[in-house]
């Protein structure tokens, strides 16, 4: 039952969030490429193939994990808090407890486990799409050739960057799901309180994730 619930949550969080992550990360990659091309044009000494390298590095180390996590805090975090809050108010959690179900383990555990597992996967997808977005924007704008861009993408690639990205993503997944679960699980009152807890889940998890982001960068870079 617990595994089934973990997979259900993973499907909901992963597939449910894929479209927004894909759209946003593609455009972030594209905008990054355009902005760097705009600046590099005025410094003629910098070769345009560097853009590929900068977009890759920026996406892996910061943009993909952070932007994805903030998007997920808004989408998944509020969803988790309002779902658990509604279950609390409508006595569904009481119904589980009466049956003898360990409600934190059954309702919260799978959500956290699924988030820790799925958010890094979404971030990897975001990185790939961001790099593709950068390439598309550069080609459309005529800033560089495909060969130049992918030379930059491959140049100086360091696996440690990916490690940091995955650590960040897993920590973000844990942070946003655990805070949202707490906010939803402990709701008391009615519809107004569910709305408030949902908002608090997004705000608090976004702030905590930025603090976590700083410490990961500070300690690992």
């Amino acid at each position: 039952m617990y595994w089934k619930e973990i997979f259900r949550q993973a499907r909901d969080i992963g597939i449910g969030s894929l479209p927004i992550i894909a759209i946003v990360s593609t455009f972030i990659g594209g905008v990054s490429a355009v902005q760097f091309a705009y600046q590099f044009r005025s410094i003629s000494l910098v070769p345009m193939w560097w853009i590929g390298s900068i977009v890759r590095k920026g996406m892996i180390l910061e943009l993909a994990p952070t932007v994805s996590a903030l998007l997920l805090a808004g989408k998944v975090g509020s969803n988790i808090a309002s779902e658990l809050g509604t279950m609390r108010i409508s006595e569904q959690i009481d119904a589980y407890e009466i049956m003898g179900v360990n409600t934190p383990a059954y309702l919260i555990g799978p959500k956290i486990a699924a988030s820790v597992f799925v958010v890094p996967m979404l971030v990897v997808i975001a990185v790939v799409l961001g790099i593709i977005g950068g390439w598309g924007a550069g080609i459309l704008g005529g800033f560089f050739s495909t060969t130049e861009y992918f030379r930059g993408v491959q140049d100086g690639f360091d696996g440690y960057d990916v490690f940091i990205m995955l650590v960040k993503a897993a920590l973000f997944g844990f942070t946003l799901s655990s805070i949202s679960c707490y906010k939803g699980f402990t709701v008391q009152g009615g519809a107004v309180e569910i709305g408030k807890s949902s908002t608090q889940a997004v705000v608090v998890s976004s702030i905590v994730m930025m603090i976590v982001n700083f410490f990961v960068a500070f300690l690992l870079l």
Partner: protein
Amino acid sequence: MIEIKDIKKNFNAQQVLKGISSTFDSGKCNLIIGKSGSGKTVTLKCMVGLFEPDSGIISYDGRNLTEMDFTQRKTIRREIGMLFQGTALFDSLSVEENVRFPLDMFTNQTEEEKRERVNFCLGRVNLPNTNKKFPGELSGGMKKRVGIARAIVMNPKYLFCDEPNSGLDPKTAIVIDDLIREITIEYNMTTVVNTHDMNSVMGIGDKVLFLHEGLKYWEGTKEEIMKITDGELFDFIFASDFLKDLRRNAKY
């Protein structure tokens, strides 16, 4: 049999239960009645372990619930079925999944055995062929019946019903009452029903406990309750002047 002794419960500075004692016999429908805010729901939630009483004893056939840890309580909780006021059906699960949830969670039955048990319980509450529907597609009365089916699927020894008739029309309310009574007798369960519906009291009240301001005010049978002529219970039963006059002019 369930026995409660001197149950007290405070919420912050407010004393909701001020020491309630009673016994609830098996094979009978035991009703807790009282005005809104009298402590009915808190009593019921203390009895099933959803609230911890500040003091007092709750005993299930001699087993003291208040002294048990989470693991020990699991055993008793699997002997408890509960119908919630708002039914508390799991929105994301179909009727069949709702009813079979305890079987999936706590038994090693085969798929075939589970299917048979679910169909039996749904048939018992007169809801055949609703297996694939979701709670959102059901009427209030049907939701209550699914709630009862889920409550009895594990063959419980104790059945708790919190306001089973709330939000139902009088005819459907009688159907639900009759169902609760039939199931109680059929499975010799100890049934405790929270209600403020006098039709339920007269229909299924083998034993009636009247709470007033957190205290046990009166205890007796449905026959005895009709002999009450004054006081808080009289005001509760005969809430309107019309009913009061009717009672005063009656011959017994």
